[in-house]
C-alpha cells in the first residue's frame, strides 16, 4: 500500500470495526478557567512531597529540605494563610464583577427588546 492510501484505508477499517473508545483519563484543554476552579486553586496547598532534590544521590538533600520545611512550618502556614486570604478575596471580587456584568448585559438586552 502507498502511504497516500493508508489514511483512507484506516478510516474505512475503523468505521467497519465500530469499536468504542476505551474509557478512562481523557485529557482536554481548558478553554476558560471557571470561577469554581479559581476558588479551588485560591486555597493554596503545596504538597511537601514535591520538595525533593533533582541531583544524583540527592536523598540526603531531600531529607534536609523536608526537615527545613518541618522546622519552618509555623511561618509557612502563616504565609499560606495570608496568600489564600488574598487569593480568595480576589476570586470573590471577580465572581461579583462577573455577576454584575451578566446582570447589566441582561438589562441592556431587555431594554433593546423594548
Amino acid at each position, binding site marked *: 500500500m502507498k502511504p497516500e492510501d*493508508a*489514511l483512507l484505508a484506516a*478510516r474505512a477499517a475503523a468505521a467497519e470495526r465500530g469499536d468504542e473508545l476505551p474509557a478512562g483519563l481523557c485529557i482536554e484543554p481548558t*478553554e476558560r*478557567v471557571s470561577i469554581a476552579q479559581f476558588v479551588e486553586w485560591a486555597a493554596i496547598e503545596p504538597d511537601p512531597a514535591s520538595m525533593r532534590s533533582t541531583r544524583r544521590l540527592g536523598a540526603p538533600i531531600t531529607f534536609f529540605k523536608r526537615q527545613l520545611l518541618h522546622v519552618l512550618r509555623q511561618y509557612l502556614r502563616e504565609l499560606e494563610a495570608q496568600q489564600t486570604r488574598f487569593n480568595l478575596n480576589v476570586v470573590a471580587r471577580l465572581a461579583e464583577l462577573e455577576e454584575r456584568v451578566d446582570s447589566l448585559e441582561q438589562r441592556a438586552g431587555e431594554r433593546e427588546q423594548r
Partner: protein
Amino acid sequence: MKVHQVLSGAGRYDAVTMQALAFRGLFSAWGWGGRDVAANIDPRVAAEIAPISSLTPAADDLLLIHYSGYAPRLRSVLELPNRKLLISHNITPARWFWDHDPMAAVSCALGRKQLPEFAAAVDVAAGVSLFNARELGSEIVIPILFDPAQAGAPGPPDPPGPPTILFVGRIAPHKRQDAVIRAFELYRRAHAPDARLVLVGRSVNDTFEVAIRGLADELSPGAVTIEYGLTAEQLAARYRGAHAFLCMSEHEGFCIPLLEAFHFGVPVIARSVGGLPEVAGDAALLLGEDDDERVAAELLALVVGDSELRAELRERGARRVEAYAPEPTVRRLRAALEELNQPIGASQSTG
C-alpha cells in the same frame, strides 16, 4: 566575535538546552567566544549554564536568545544595547496545563504574551520552523540542529520481537500520552495481543505521571513501559526496536523525535498539528482533524503489517533527515549571526 546565548530555562533533558550547547560547540570551533546563561537552571547543568544575572556583555557582543518560556529576568536582556537574534522554540498554549500543572500554565500564558513583545524588540526574530517563525511575523527559519551521525546507525527494517509502538516526548498534557495509550490498546485488542507500548519521557509532575501510569495499568496492564533518563545509546535502542512511532500530540513547534524516528527507520503516525507537517513532509502518516484513536489504531495495524508501506515510509523518512542535514542549518545560523555583527548600514545593504 562573541555570542552570548540566553535561555528561558536550562535542563538536563531539555531540547533547547541541548541545542544551545551544540551551538556553543560550533561557536568554539569557529573561534567565537561568549557564555551561555539562563533565567532558571536545573542544578545538573549548572556547570555549563550560568545565571542570567552574571551576563555582562561588551557593547559589540551579540546576544542569541532562545525563547521557550516566560522568565521574569529575561526582560532585562532586552534592555541591553547589544544586537540580538531571537529564536522561538515555541510555547505550548496554556489551556493544556491549567488542570494539570497550573504553574506551567501561568508560565505558558505569560510566555505567549511576552513573545511578540520580545520579537519586536530584537534585531532579528526567527523560528525553529516556519510555523514558529510566522507566529512572530518572520520568515526566517533556523531549524533544530539534528546530527544523524551522532544518533547512531538506523535500525533493521523489521525489528525482531512483538510489535512495539514508541512515543518519545515529555509526559505532558498536550502530548496526549492518554490518546497514545488508548490507540495502542485498540490496536492490541484487535490486531496484536502481544504488542508493547514504550513511552519515553519525563513527566511535567509526579501527579500527572501517576495519572498516565494509572491509565496504562487500567487499559493495557503489563503492556506499557514508561521510561526516562535514558542514555543516548538506550534511546537509540528503543528506536531500533520499534515497529511504529505514534505521536498524538496536539501542539508541536518542531518535534525532534520525528526526525529521530525517521533516522532510525521507524514509520511515523502523527497528528497534523503546528510545525509537525512541515517537518514530516510526505514521510509520515498524518491524521486528519477528525480522526481519533480508532483511526490511529488501524494505521498502526497497517504500518506494522504492510512491508511495502513500511519500506516506502522508511525511504521517505531518510529523505526528510537529509532535508534537515546539519550543514545547511549551521550555514544559516552562521550567516544570521555574521550579518547581525555587521555595522548597521552594511547589514542593510547586504539584504
